[in-house]
């Protein structure tokens, strides 16, 4: 890991966003990085949206907040334009869903996370793990092996298999998106 990763995930309470961010943090930590992970809640722990983030870096992390992340994943909306200004100039934006007909900027990726969890994993609750897969697949911020190990550690013992599947499907979707982007770039 050569750069400082600042990854933010936006979801609604109960979507497992916090766990996803912890999994990313643990994976990065296992690979020898410094990490800081945290989250914001709505009023006390009630309703509304929640955001979680991870900072990972080889050097020590003092300032524990993210101002403009270099990776932003949005579970709750497909309106990517609203979020473009929130990310770092070289940042990547990952939206949950299918892109519209219009041309999408190069740094924006659409991954149908909920759909994958719903239709392919057949367990909507695993959306957050699909999400981990997508981030890892798109960014390579941690190795897939490290990420998978972290996933297995953070899900209930009896749900390891299904979550492994969710992760792999997330990674695969990411790879496909990358390939498509590359294709469209070269075309």
């Amino acid at each position, binding site marked *: 890991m050569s750069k400082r990763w600042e990854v933010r995930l936006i979801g609604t309470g109960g979507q497992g966003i916090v766990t996803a961010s*912890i999994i990313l*943090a*643990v994976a990065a*930590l296992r690979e020898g*990085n*410094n*990490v*800081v*992970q*945290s*989250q*914001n*809640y*709505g*009023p*006390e*722990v009630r309703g509304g949206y929640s955001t979680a983030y991870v900072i990972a870096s080889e050097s020590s*992390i*003092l*300032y*524990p*907040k993210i*101002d403009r992340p270099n990776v932003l994943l949005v579970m709750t909306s497909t309106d990517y334009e609203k979020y473009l200004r929130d990310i770092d100039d070289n940042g990547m934006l990952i939206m949950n869903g299918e892109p519209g007909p219009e041309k999408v900027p190069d740094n924006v990726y659409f991954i149908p996370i909920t759909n994958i969890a719903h239709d392919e994993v057949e367990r909507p609750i695993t959306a957050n793990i699909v999400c981990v897969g997508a981030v890892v697949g798109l960014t390579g911020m941690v190795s897939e092996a490290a990420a998978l190990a972290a996933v297995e550690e953070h899900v209930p013992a009896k749900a390891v298999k299904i979550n492994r599947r969710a992760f792999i499907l997330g990674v695969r979707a990411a790879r496909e998106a990358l390939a498509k982007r590359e294709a469209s770039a070269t075309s």
Partner: protein
Amino acid sequence: MAEAKLLSGNDACVQGALAAGVRFFAGYPITPSTEIANAFARELPGRGGIFMQMEDEIASMGAIIGASCTGTKAVTATSGPGFSLMQENIGYAAVAEIPCVIINVMRYGPSTGLPTSPSQGDFMQTRWGPHGDHPVIVIAPYTAREAYRETGRAVNLSERYRVPVIVLMDEILGHLRERVEFRDEDLVQEINRKGPDPDSTFLPYEYTEDGVPPFANFGTGYRYHITGLIHDETGFPTNNPVEVDRIMRRVNEKIELHRRDIARTQFVEVDDADILVVAFGSVARSAHEAVRTLRQEGKAVGMVRPVTVWPFPDEDIRKAAAGKKAVIVPEMNLGQMVREVERVVAGTVPVHALNRIDGLLITPQEMRDLIEDIQ
């Protein structure tokens, strides 16, 4: 404990307390400290300890004092509203000299305020919250690793000096998880309160050389009296002015007497700095970051961070500030520690306050901007 782990500030407090021998926790849930209660509830019963959820914070504070009377190391954790309610009993622990530790994970106040937003608004309250003059030790860690170590140290200091010790966290540190890899120096040593000397008569509030009387745990054969009334060295109430003066000076002054052991201050590139930032807690993370990047740019900026915030490190700040062009005190409040800094530097160096009260952490950039303005 050598393996690196991901640990939250709140969990780190619990681990540190357990390592220092804490076996009793009493508390009442409150954001953003609740994870501390949750963790103690899981950890204590399997270690011969007791986790107790009390009816409120007043009772929680009372229960940990009671537990401490039997010789059990005891902790409570809370945040602003609950901390306000604990003040009377904190004063009790101070004057009756009962070891105990209170973790205050600061949130935005006053009143219910912004329960999930960070703040440093309780800085002065940790010093002056209870009525009457009283001794206090307050320690403010800034990383999870330090939260572990300093909570352990808080337990030890409370045992050694028979004083309530406050661990002053904030929402940011409490809720973030970060890489923690314990080194040897982090290992918490268990220190136990001094017991009665079996060879001489036990005087519960004896004047000893170190200013700290021996403590006889309840149920160990010493039948004596503890009270929140002003008492003489036998532990019984007195209003004899000479006795009152003597004991209350001892109780208050024991902190100063042991300042060297109690105080901990971090100095970051202070010596050759022109500009000095004085910060504590999470804000010091931003300050430290600002110092780091400014130094990379060749700017002569340093930081002093009181780890032990009370007793306030008067001398450390005075010395560090001497000859500097300016001192900057960033805080997530309207300017509390800055008053202490002003008092201490006594006009020798200009002091600038940098305050944020919108519920967000001061950024390194804001500090850099101010520093550039000053230069």
